[in-house]
């Protein structure tokens, strides 16, 4: 009896093992799927919950289309809209692509866009989606099946930028289907369609046979979550992963193997020590003190020693190519820093709390190195790690103590980059407020003439650079590893577009 039992169990086990083997698909050499490994899990596949560029964003960019595509240099390109123009100062008109179908057979038209944009403006999606808040969008008017007017409350130069992250899903499907199904079995019109998602493990996509554009070179894509960096690098070296996202500068060389190369690009996120002007240290309200902090820290040396020389100092609070070319990084000049401190009446320095969170790698190291430079101008630093949730609360209420390690933000759009530091803005975590600056920024965001707008933006950049609400550091480097069999141009904003990957 007992024996019989064991035999049965053995047979069962063998069956299980065979089942597992049968589930593992066998691919021909050239049709092998491309595996992309990122540190984080994909959180949700609801296109209107997109809140991180990779991997969630990369997956959504693959399955769905927006009206306008943002290319790697930040320029707007046609996608579901083939062309657009301004009808008047408040109205944008979009001509939509004809003959597009979603992967469930629903047809794409202006009404589909209207349904999606309305959904973005309701809770809970409006706490994640930015289109309405950032553009002042007030009405979506269907002119005919393939013409759409977007009306805003005030003239805006940001419409195209935010449309690039406003994705259009199959309208009947997102309306009639339970939200948990919408978010786990997405239906879009993009180059890839959904096959399978094992949460926390892998998302499998395959090229969509109904896609309106050219078929992608890579047919099957697998997004894998591999949280540990050394595991991602080991997978790359073993050839079981083709693209690795999220490598720290100290480990960059490990992505160079027999089968893979490392790719380093300067990212877009502007790392800085925010200076809390209304915090516990009143001296920070004096712009001379804030300039002194900038002169006191040797940023290029920190980049070389902590980041392996993988990036460069910030040139402005606006990313290239829109930065004011007359501005240059603060030089490392401790004498000048001391002089400014003395001029402001703080020759003997003051105590200063330096805070960081787990949001960005190396917060503790950077804080301590910056602190040691500041000690040279008599500042007495104390260090404090802050839990990420509390850190974010302090950021949005501009209530950090002294200076704090932070990065903002992965985008190329001068208007959006500048608005962050206007008085009382929700992202203005340093509490900086200068009415002259605000006037320039608001005027620029409503100036439709390109040359005139650039002039206003340059002026605003110059003000903020000298007022120094940040201790300017560097652009967060993005480091990738890629198989030698593939070629792909990585983006500075960390989105991946697998349909642009080609075989060498």
């Amino acid at each position, binding site marked *: 009896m007992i024996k019989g039992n064991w035999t049965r169990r053995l047979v069962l086990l063998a069956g299980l*093992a065979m089942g*597992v*083997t049968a*589930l*593992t698909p066998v691919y021909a050499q050239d049709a092998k799927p491309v595996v992309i490994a990122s540190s*984080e*899990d994909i*959180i*949700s596949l*609801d296109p209107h*919950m997109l*809140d991180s560029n990779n991997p969630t964003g990369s997956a959504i960019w693959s399955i769905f289309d927006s009206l306008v595509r943002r290319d790697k240099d930040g320029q707007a390109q046609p996608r579901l809209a083939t062309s657009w123009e301004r009808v008047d100062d408040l109205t944008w008109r979009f001509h939509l692509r004809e003959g597009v179908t979603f992967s469930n057979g629903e047809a794409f038209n202006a009404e589909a866009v209207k349904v999606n944009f309305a959904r973005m403006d309701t*809770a*809970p999606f*409006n*706490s*994640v989606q*930015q289109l309405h*808040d950032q553009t002042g969008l007030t009405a979506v008017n269907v002119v005919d099946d393939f013409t759409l007017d977007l009306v805003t409350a005030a003239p805006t130069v940001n419409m195209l930028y935010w449309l690039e992250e406003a994705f259009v899903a199959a309208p009947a499907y997102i309306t009639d289907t339970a*939200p*948990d199904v*919408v*978010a*786990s079995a997405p239906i879009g019109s993009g180059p890839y369609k959904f096959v399978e998602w*094992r*949460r*926390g*493990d*892998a998302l499998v996509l395959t090229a969509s046979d109904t896609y309106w554009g050219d078929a992608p070179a890579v047919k099957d894509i697998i997004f*894998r*979550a*591999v*949280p*540990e960096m*050394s*595991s991602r690098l*080991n*997978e790359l*070296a*073993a050839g*079981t992963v083709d693209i690795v996202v999220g490598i720290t500068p100290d480990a960059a060389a490990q992505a160079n193997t027999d089968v893979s190369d490392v790719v380093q690009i300067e990212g877009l996120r502007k790392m800085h020590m925010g200076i809390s002007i209304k915090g516990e240290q009143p001296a920070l309200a004096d712009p001379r003190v804030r300039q002194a902090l900038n002169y006191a820290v040797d940023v290029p040396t920190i980049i070389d020693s902590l980041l392996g020389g993988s990036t460069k100092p910030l040139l402005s609070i606006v990313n290239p190519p829109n930065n004011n070319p007359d501005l240059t990084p603060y030089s490392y000049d401790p004498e000048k820093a001391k002089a400014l401190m003395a001029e402001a009446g703080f020759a003997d320095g003051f105590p200063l709390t330096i805070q960081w969170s787990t949001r960005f790698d190396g917060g503790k190291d950077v804080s301590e190195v910056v602190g040691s430079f500041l000690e040279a101008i008599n500042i007495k630093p104390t260090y404090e790690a802050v*839990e*990420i*949730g*509390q850190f*974010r*609360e302090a*950021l*949005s209420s501009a209530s950090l103590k002294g200076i704090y390690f932070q990065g903002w*933000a992965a985008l190329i759009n001068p208007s959006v980059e500048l608005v*962050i530091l206007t008085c009382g803005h*929700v*992202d203005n975590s340093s509490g900086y407020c200068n009415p002259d600056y605000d006037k320039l920024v608001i005027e620029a965001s409503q100036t439709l003439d390109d040359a005139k707008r650039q002039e206003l933006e340059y002026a605003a950049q110059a003000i903020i650079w000298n007022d120094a609400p940040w201790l300017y550091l560097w652009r967060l480097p993005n480091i990738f590893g890629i198989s030698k069999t593939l070629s792909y141009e990585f983006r500075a904003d960390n989105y991946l577009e697998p349909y642009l990957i080609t075989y060498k």
Partner: protein
Amino acid sequence: MFSFLSKRFLQALLVLLGVSFATFIVGHLTGDPVELMARENATEQDKQDLRVYLGLDRPLEQQYFSFIVKAVQGDLGFSFVQQAKVSQLIAERLPATLQLAAAGFLLALAISIPLGIIIALNRGTIWDFLVTTLAMAGQAAPGFWIGLMLVVLFAVHLKVLPVSGYGGAAYIVLPAITLALQSSARLTRLVRASMLEVLSADYIRTAHSKGLRERVVLFVHAFRGAMIPVVTMAGLELAELVSGAFITETIFAWPGIGRLAVTAVSQRDFPVIQGVVLMSAAFFVLINFLVDVLYVVIDPRVKLK
């Protein structure tokens, strides 16, 4: 037996109620969840909409009460962040977690029990010294280090096993060994100590003096007695494994409960946190109960009351 069961059941309910209350309160003490859920630059109005949508604008006691009423019906709530049912998120991760826990646990027992007995019987020899030292080193070595070393050896150099991931049988080998090595380091030392204690007990001397054969004394008398503390410890180890081995799951990209929980914490995904903690607590209660039952089987002196 019946009174034992009903008493245990009531205790379990109380434990689960206490756990749910504690997670609820602690979760709400650590900051406004909406701050983390909403995008970094959401307006106050967006955040308020979200509070209303999630029911976070209601009084705390009302939020807790509605959570309990739904949980009793098997509905652990809806994760706004992931747009998914919590019960489904847990159910998806459970197979991976249980497979890894079972494999790691059985392997740990298979290593530690024979090894512990052998070195107890050869106390003071070079083998005893070697194994005890090794076990101590195993207990002191961090799990992530053991895991990474195994990967470097078997996956990168020898290329006989996959680096990480979840799938066929090959994927479970390294994470299971990583878990088992840590557990078995603790268990081996416990088996040895417990065995030595039992071997010097009066009833073993009696068994010897009755003229029983050495093998019978060892495996019938001594072994059962020595297993009592081991069962307690092993029960705790298993309960811990089932509630998610976060570090091992992270190194091997294993889609288990531990990673689900840690991701949920960093996103203030309250429904998921509460669900996972409740589930882990339920497993602890269940395994404790099984341990109690096992006592009766092993040790005739113990009676269920």
